């Protein structure tokens, strides 16, 4: 903890035991599946199918225009249309609707003859064609990090899962340990890096032992445990903790690429089977869920079907349905939105009234900000509509991790004010350019 910089991290009550030890459930695949035409926050997709088209699992549905991101069908059946539906971005978005014929006919996306002897270019092309994205929640296309790869010496496989309640990566790593190391090795080859570090949180002895045992067979892979603090899974903090390196904008400045554990597993499976991500493990947890559990879900399944499959919500009261964990997950107004391949959790929390009092200016948010910003001052500047000051306070660096609101003793929505400040300053910048 720095004298001038504060802590920038905090231990959270994890509530992970709710879903840590239980069985993994299987969610039945519904009669209709909706594939959202959204990648992260981008929605610029060119649709490659039309109403009435027959599709199989792996049929290309749409391509992103600004960068190559393919979306594949996850069931076989007939396209019944393009519909606007509620999405995890909190907005109505276009979805490709497919009527499932329950035949599960497959078509390979890529066909790799010799998966054990692939060149660097082959692997990067495979990552691109498989549509591997950051499966920790960002949805950022992974090949982008490898396209212009240069001077990378370390690949970090992020299995930290620092948000409370979420255990999907834990379970996925437990059952797919072999694929995880295999995928990690592909990422290493794609970047021509010297080493791979698989990072998990402390306090998971079984997983650590299993990973260690598997990693022994790979000469470049090591497994490291990191402290149980939030936001340990954030790549900047993870890189700093593991390599003692800092960077300004992108991890590649520190000669590191970070990939999510689930992405590595998907890559390995994709290369070995030729199929894109068609289902994923999702943690459905929180105090608003009757039986919190991890469940295998076909991508494109609406959340209400998943929740029905595991026993529903608690009976009484009001609550929030969050796409993601309780810190960064967004509250969605209904449970009709669908699961994307990069969505690792649904958290349902009972509504809790917080009594907000005046800001004390105690500076706890400044002390805990992982980016070492000063949220209390950004909030003052935002309230005063002072764009210049917002710029000086480096507001654009905020990653909206939610730490300032979490820590605020006065229960003020600090993160919200900072996010507003970001938008205000962004507008000012655009106006200046214009």
């Amino acid at each position, binding site marked *: 903890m720095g004298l001038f910089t504060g802590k920038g991290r905090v231990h959270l009550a994890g509530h992970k035991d709710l879903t840590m030890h239980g069985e993994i459930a299987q969610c039945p695949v519904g009669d209709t599946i909706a594939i959202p035409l959204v990648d992260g926050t981008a929605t610029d997709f060119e649709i490659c199918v039309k109403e009435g088209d027959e599709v199989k699992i792996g049929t290309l549905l749409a391509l992103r225009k600004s960068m190559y991101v393919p979306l594949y069908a996850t069931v076989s059946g007939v396209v019944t249309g393009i519909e606007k539906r509620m999405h995890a971005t909190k907005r109505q978005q276009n979805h490709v609707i497919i009527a499932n014929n329950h035949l599960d006919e497959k078509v390979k996306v890529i066909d790799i003859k010799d998966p054990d002897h692939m060149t660097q270019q082959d692997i990067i092309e495979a990552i691109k064609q498989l549509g591997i994205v950051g499966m920790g929640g960002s949805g950022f296309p992974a090949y982008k990090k490898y396209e212009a790869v240069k001077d990378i010496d370390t690949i970090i496989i992020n299995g930290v899962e620092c948000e409370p309640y979420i255990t999907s990566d834990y379970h996925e790593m437990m059952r797919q340990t072999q694929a995880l190391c295999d995928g990690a090795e592909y990422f290493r080859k794609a970047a021509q890096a010297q080493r791979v570090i698989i990072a998990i949180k402390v306090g998971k002895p079984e997983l650590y032992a299993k990973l260690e045992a598997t990693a022994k067979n790979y000469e470049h892979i090591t497994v490291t445990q990191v402290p149980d603090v939030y936001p340990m899974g954030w790549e900047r903090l993870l890189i700093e903790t593991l390599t003692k390196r800092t960077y300004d904008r992108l991890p590649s400045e520190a000669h590191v690429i970070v990939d999510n554990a689930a992405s590595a597993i998907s890559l390995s499976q994709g290369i070995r089977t030729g199929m894109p991500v068609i289902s994923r493990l999702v943690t459905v947890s929180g105090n608003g869920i009757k039986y919190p559990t991890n469940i295998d879900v076909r991508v494109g399944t609406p959340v209400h079907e998943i929740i029905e499959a595991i026993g529903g919500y608690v009976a009484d009261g009001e609550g929030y349905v969050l796409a993601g964990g*309780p810190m960064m997950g967004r509250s969605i107004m209904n449970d009709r939105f669908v699961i994307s391949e990069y969505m690792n959790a649904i958290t349902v929390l009972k509504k809790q009234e917080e009594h907000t009092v005046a800001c004390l200016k105690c*500076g706890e948010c400044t002390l805990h900000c992982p980016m070492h910003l000063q949220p209390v001052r950004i909030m003052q500047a935002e309230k005063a509509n002072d764009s210049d*000051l917002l710029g000086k*306070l480096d507001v654009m660096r905020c990653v909206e991790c939610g730490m300032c609101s979490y820590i605020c003793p006065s229960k003020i929505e600090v993160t919200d004010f900072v996010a507003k400040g970001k938008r205000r300053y962004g507008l000012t910048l655009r106006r200046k350019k214009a």
Partner: protein
Amino acid sequence: MIIKMKRTTPAYRQPQSTATIMRDLLIAEGTLAIASIIMQIYRHNINYGLKALGMYFFAIMTAVITEGIWASIHQKPLKSIVTDSFCLNTPIIFTLTLPIGTPYYVVVIGAFIATFFGKLVYGGFGQNIFNPALVGRVVVHLSFASKLTNSLSFVDATTSPTPATALAKTNWFGTSAFHYSLSDLLFGMHDGALGEGLIILLVIIGIILALRHVYDPRITISYLGSVALFALVSALVLGIHPCVNIARHLMLGGLMLGAILMATDPVTSPSSPLGKIIYGISLGFLTMLIRLKANYPEGVLFSILIMNMLTPWIDTLILGRTNQHLKKQLIIVLVALCVGTGIIGGVSTTLEPPKQSKVGEIYEAHY
């Protein structure tokens, strides 16, 4: 379950709240108040204890009534004076700074000024510029100085000067005319404000509160640390025992009370880590300067009020990310310490040992 939408993230909050912080503070202040009452009974008699109890009672009643009227004028629920405005903390801290001889009407006036002019007129809790308790204290000090005595005149009239006054009379040399030993200071065996002598309890409470994250120890440590540093410099210049001088200055007057309960008031102190450190150093510097050179032997009250004024400016010392320009931040701190050391050292050279004739007078002057 009915699904509601929450417009903001995160939906997850830490257990500590402003209410629990203020509750912890209230417990700490209550403990100090009770200890100060016991101390009065132990050092004098039951009448002193009752007087102290009465002072706390009148101060709290004044604050509660003032806030209650204010809340009803502004059509807020009466409950909010405790849940939102935390009206009990200010009067207790205010009373802790008063000497035992303060008449009840002065307590009432001071508590009213602290609550009304110190806090409510600025817009209530969280909006005030100055530490409310100290606003009350300074008005009382300037208006009723002769009433703030260390004895109850109807019980007995003998009185001795506070350690700060006594030490000031020796021109801060602490010659044999200064008849308080270090253990007297440590155990509070002297007259002074109600909360002044409770050094051991204050340190314990300070550590507990810091561990419970009730306040940021950066201010307290830099305040006490810089006072210790400047006392060391002063001792070297004056040619007296450095350790004794440091211990005396740390335990003198309201320094511990101020450093732990008043300077750390988050509302009136800077929010950035660098700002807090600079704030603490400046407080130490001003306290020592006022002690050594100003007419008033006790510098905590004025130094905190002066630094309250400078808080917004200190906050502008660092904009942007706090992990940038670490060298510059360190230099700012070192420069502040060097300037302070230089000035306090220079000021100390102007002090001369007290003349013999003055020694006899020290028992007469007191506040």
